[in-house]
């Protein structure tokens, strides 16, 4: 118990203080998992959809995503305290899980084409499921917390320090295909920032201060913007090119000056995607077990993984089209769910 409290870096003198510190540390770790999930979704949105639509102006679309992110954060900051309100976010989590599993399986398929596509999906989902089942309640969140600097370093090596010939003049013509197109691209990306709601739903704690909430929200958004900026700097492919999943994921790294950077970029995806998928499954488990405490852990852990696995294995060809169609709506759904949670809270307060 006292050992776990060491994560807070604060000296504790009794058991109660240790419990309190431990709870705080767990809350921070849960917020970090929300940051990792949102950052992964933003990075994937730029890679799969954003750059193809806005090309060199994709960073502006990523910057514009601050507006929907702020809206979602405001709604959930004000209203997301009911134990059942989080259940409204399950459809968004399900889409996240399907997207992550699709990207990860496509990447593994590119790395080892000899293995069956479905085998990769089953292996990945099974590993995530077992990780959730075998770990302690706080295990996934604390494990992600341990990996935070490792993930950040890999991200920086995969973009900022890729040692590719990134040049600022590639960002011109500065408005790309025009402001309306940039705004429309940002609209399609609103689905990637819904994860900001998890910052306030996952931790079962009092809300953070407004300043802290803004900082937590800005972190994944900044990561997404930096990723988009490097796509603009490098022009990794011509928009409209028909690329496979693995080619898209390694598109930026293809322009690395060194094979080591290229491999490290691959390592980034191989760490980020499974960690994010496990965090996603953990979020679903937390939300379900909070609403239905009697639900068996094996069931709640498979709540998101099983449908995502079935979608990836049974609809390998249709899934990309479905994802393209459905993913942008996650933002609207999260905002609507936040508004509903706020109304419920006000109604309860009125009683």
């Amino acid at each position, binding site marked *: 118990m006292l050992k776990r409290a060491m994560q807070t870096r604060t000296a504790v003198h009794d058991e109660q203080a240790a419990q309190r510190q431990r709870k705080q540390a767990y809350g921070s770790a849960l917020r970090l998992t929300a940051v990792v999930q949102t950052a992964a979704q933003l990075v994937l949105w730029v890679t799969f959809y954003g750059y193809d639509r806005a090309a060199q102006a994709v960073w502006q679309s990523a910057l514009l995503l601050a507006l929907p992110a702020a809206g979602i954060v405001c709604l959930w900051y004000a209203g997301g305290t009911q134990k059942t309100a989080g259940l409204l976010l399950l459809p968004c989590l399900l889409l996240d899980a399907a997207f992550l599993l699709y990207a990860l399986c496509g990447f593994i398929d*590119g790395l080892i084409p000899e293995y069956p596509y479905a085998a990769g999906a089953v292996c990945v989902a099974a590993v995530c499921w077992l990780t959730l089942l075998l770990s302690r309640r706080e295990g996934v969140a604390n494990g992600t917390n341990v990996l935070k600097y490792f993930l950040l370093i890999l991200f920086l090596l995969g973009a900022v320090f890729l040692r590719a010939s990134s040049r600022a003049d590639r960002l011109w013509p*500065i408005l*790309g*295909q025009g402001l309306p197109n940039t705004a429309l691209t940002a609209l399609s990306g609103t689905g990637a920032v819904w994860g900001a709601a998890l910052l306030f739903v996952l931790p079962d704690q009092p809300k953070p201060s407004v300043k802290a909430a803004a900082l937590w929200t800005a972190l994944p958004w900044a990561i997404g913007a930096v990723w988009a900026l490097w796509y603009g700097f490098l*022009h990794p492919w*011509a928009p409209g090119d028909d690329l496979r999943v693995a080619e898209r994921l390694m598109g930026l790294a*293809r322009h690395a000056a060194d094979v080591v950077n290229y491999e490290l970029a691959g*390592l980034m995806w191989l760490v980020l995607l499974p960690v994010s998928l496990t965090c996603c499954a953990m979020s679903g488990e937390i939300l379900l077990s909070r609403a239905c405490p009697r639900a068996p852990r094996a069931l709640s852990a498979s709540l998101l993984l099983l449908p995502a696995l079935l979608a990836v294995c049974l609809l390998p060809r249709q899934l990309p089209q479905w994802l393209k169609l459905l993913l942008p709506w996650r933002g609207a759904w999260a905002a609507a769910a936040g508004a509903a949670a706020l109304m419920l809270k006000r109604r309860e307060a009125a009683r």
Partner: protein
Amino acid sequence: MKRLLLLCLCLCLTGCSHTYLERQIYPICLSLDMLDDGRYQVGLQAPQSANGGATGYDVLSAAGETPMDALRVLAASIPYPLNFSQIRLCLISYELASNQPLLPLLRGLLELPTMRPNAYVMTAMDSALEVMTAQKPDLGMRLSTHLNLLFERLRREQTLPDSTLSTCVRELGDGRSDFLLCLCAVNARLQNDKPEQQPTQPGGDAGGASAAFAVGEPWSDALLPNDILAGMMPRTSINPVEYVGSAAVSNGRVCGVLTARETQLAVRVLNSAKLRTAVKGGLQLQVILPRSGELDGCEGEITALIRRLQAMGSDALTFGRIASMAFATDAAWQAYDFRALFPQAETAVR
């Protein structure tokens, strides 16, 4: 301990493949040609022994309807899978590079699963396969080491344009400007193993009239101008392959040849001069040279170089990229039609 184990596990994940490293073939060079019947010929130069020693190099080649078809035929005819992570040089014949769009060819190569993105792309006069076969590493050196040293030397002498595979694909996809590809050829006199008849000191008269080849014109030795052969490029005692200048790309194809001196000037201008454009009231191209340095007194040569590139329609000095910064949107940039204005643009070098 747990973190260390996790890190090791993550690092191991990147190398998960069922093929042992020693049971793969690692080509060092790749060549692309177009045969008379319109099919593509792909050649690979790989070490004979699996341990990578300099025991000798085999050249394998196959033909197909597309480069990927040819590669598939090649892969099917050898016992071990190909791994392109050690490729240093991709040679494309001048004829192919000037007749076919380069983007699909090079993108296909770049997207090979194990391809090395920073392999250099070069144009070979005559047959790329012959040029590849003719190159020999010096003094028992490995071919990969020989090529690494050669590139380093060319880079130091500022005669190596930035033409890595990934750069070429990116610039071809972007389309706002062009680039140069290093040009190599077999010196027939050196190939006949008569090194004593050759000048031992690289250099010579590089200031004479140089040759420009019409798009699609097949290369022949008769067209090889003396000033190109007497280039300033490094030459080794036994290697008959000479790096004689560069090929200029325009609109996705090779459109002409620059001499070694012109290539050096172009690389120096790209590295150290400031480039500007004025787009209002007619396109104007400006090169502002550094106050002191290697480009002192080269104004006339640079002006002549720009005129040559304008005549070829090749924006290898990347003025297009700079001009595009004057426009707010892609539509405005497209409407300006830089490509049409570039050949007639005024130039100023100061």
